[in-house]
């Protein structure tokens, strides 16, 4: 039995994936402290490494049409082990959602509205996400192109307005950093913006046709990756070596826009764009979390869980880290290590087991 009755098209999937990856633009700052002026390389390398894994997600979703990740786990690994793996995924969705909610709070408290209580941002933002999730995946998919276009507009216009301040010698010398730092950077990029697309295994079951799912998913991924690349190139070209000392490199570079003393201090622009894009990403994570939990408990609808989970996520987001520094330190070590099996191991392994066991045809033959 499927929890979600709504259906989305392949075109909407493209914008959902693009908007989701764009929602991680702010998190490029996590990598900058480690990979400095070579961040652009890490973004491209991360995409190349993650592409086959994301292909396995889409192939898995096509192999089990109309089913979400919890149902796939139950079918592939059996009822007990499948539920254990699903609980691991639910923990991942819950933690990642709380980190992203906290990111919005930190963004506002640091740059935009310093005197407002932190918890207020978390409550308002999570309530908005809960409202969006209660409307269903169809509604989110229908508005996704608006979010993607507005996000791209801000990124491209900021790049254009900063062209006169760019110094491309900031990218030199290539291959200066030790391999371990490049490796850690690739690990961060492949887990945070790209690997988190594992959440789409909870959404691809709603596709009305799976014919062009691979093409559309990769088109969306490419739009998101190019946007991340534009942001990384802009920040390095504008800020150079100083980009590692700022809390948010994107905000700092946008603050340098000065066109005839008329167009200046445009950081509110990036604040609006970031809020929209992180809202979209959080809504998808929240949707995946409530659907996974409802599926696990065998509920008819996910709606009764939306508000209690919103309350839990607000408190987790408020208390999970003591400061932005604590947030970065834990995410860059434990955060990317514990989520690696969920992103790189289980989906390809599920696909391999399904191939070997001839699933799901075998199960249908049994009449299960």
């Amino acid at each position, binding site marked *: 039995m499927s929890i979600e009755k709504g259906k989305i098209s392949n075109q909407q999937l493209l914008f959902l994936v693009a908007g989701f990856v764009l929602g991680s633009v702010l998190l490029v700052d996590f990598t900058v402290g480690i990979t400095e002026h070579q961040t652009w390389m890490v973004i491209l390398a991360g995409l190349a490494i993650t592409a086959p894994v994301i292909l396995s997600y889409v192939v898995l979703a096509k192999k089990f049409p109309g089913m979400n990740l919890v149902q796939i786990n139950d079918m592939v690994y059996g009822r007990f082990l499948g539920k254990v793996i699903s609980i691991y995924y639910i923990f991942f969705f819950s933690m990642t959602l709380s980190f992203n909610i906290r990111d919005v709070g930190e963004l506002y408290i640091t740059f935009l509205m310093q005197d407002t209580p932190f918890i207020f941002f978390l*409550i308002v933002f999570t309530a908005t996400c809960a409202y969006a999730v209660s409307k269903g995946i169809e509604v989110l998919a229908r508005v996704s192109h608006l979010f993607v276009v507005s996000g791209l507009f801000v990124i491209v216009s900021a790049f254009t307005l900063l062209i006169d301040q760019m110094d491309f010698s900031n990218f030199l010398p290539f291959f200066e950093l030790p391999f371990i730092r490049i490796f850690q950077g690739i690990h961060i990029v492949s887990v945070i913006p790209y690997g988190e697309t594992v959440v789409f295994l909870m959404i691809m079951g709603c596709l009305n046709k799976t014919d062009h799912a691979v093409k559309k998913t990769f088109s969306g991924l490419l739009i998101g990756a190019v946007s991340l690349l534009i942001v990384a190139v802009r920040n390095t070209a504008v800020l150079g070596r100083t980009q590692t000392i700022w809390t948010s490199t994107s905000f700092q570079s946008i603050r340098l826009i000065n066109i005839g003393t008329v167009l200046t201090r445009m950081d509110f622009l990036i604040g609006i764009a970031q809020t929209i894009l992180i809202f979209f990403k959080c809504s998808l994570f929240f949707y995946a979390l409530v659907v996974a939990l409802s599926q696990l408990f065998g509920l008819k609808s996910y709606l*009764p869980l939306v*508000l209690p989970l919103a309350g839990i996520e607000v*408190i987790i987001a408020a208390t999970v880290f003591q400061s932005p520094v604590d947030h970065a330190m*834990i995410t860059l*070590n*434990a955060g990317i290590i514990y989520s690696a099996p969920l992103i790189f191991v289980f989906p390809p392994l599920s696909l391999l087991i399904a191939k070997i066991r001839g699933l799901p045809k075998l199960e249908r033959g049994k009449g299960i």
Partner: protein
Amino acid sequence: MIFLLLIYAFVLIINVPGLIKRKEWRELAVFSVFYVIAFALGLMYVLDIPIPSPMKGLQHLIVDIFGLEYPK
């Protein structure tokens, strides 16, 4: 504190009557469990009772026990 109680009362009013009317007892049971967890966490936050961070425990497990950490 009053604001928190108002929010939790609002959540109850929105969800419970519909679930009872439709006789969705399993949904009501699961909702109640998560509602109690949310209420307890909210109360702990308002009363400044320390809430253990799951990521701190995970950090301890991965870094201190398994020794998996990138060099600084």
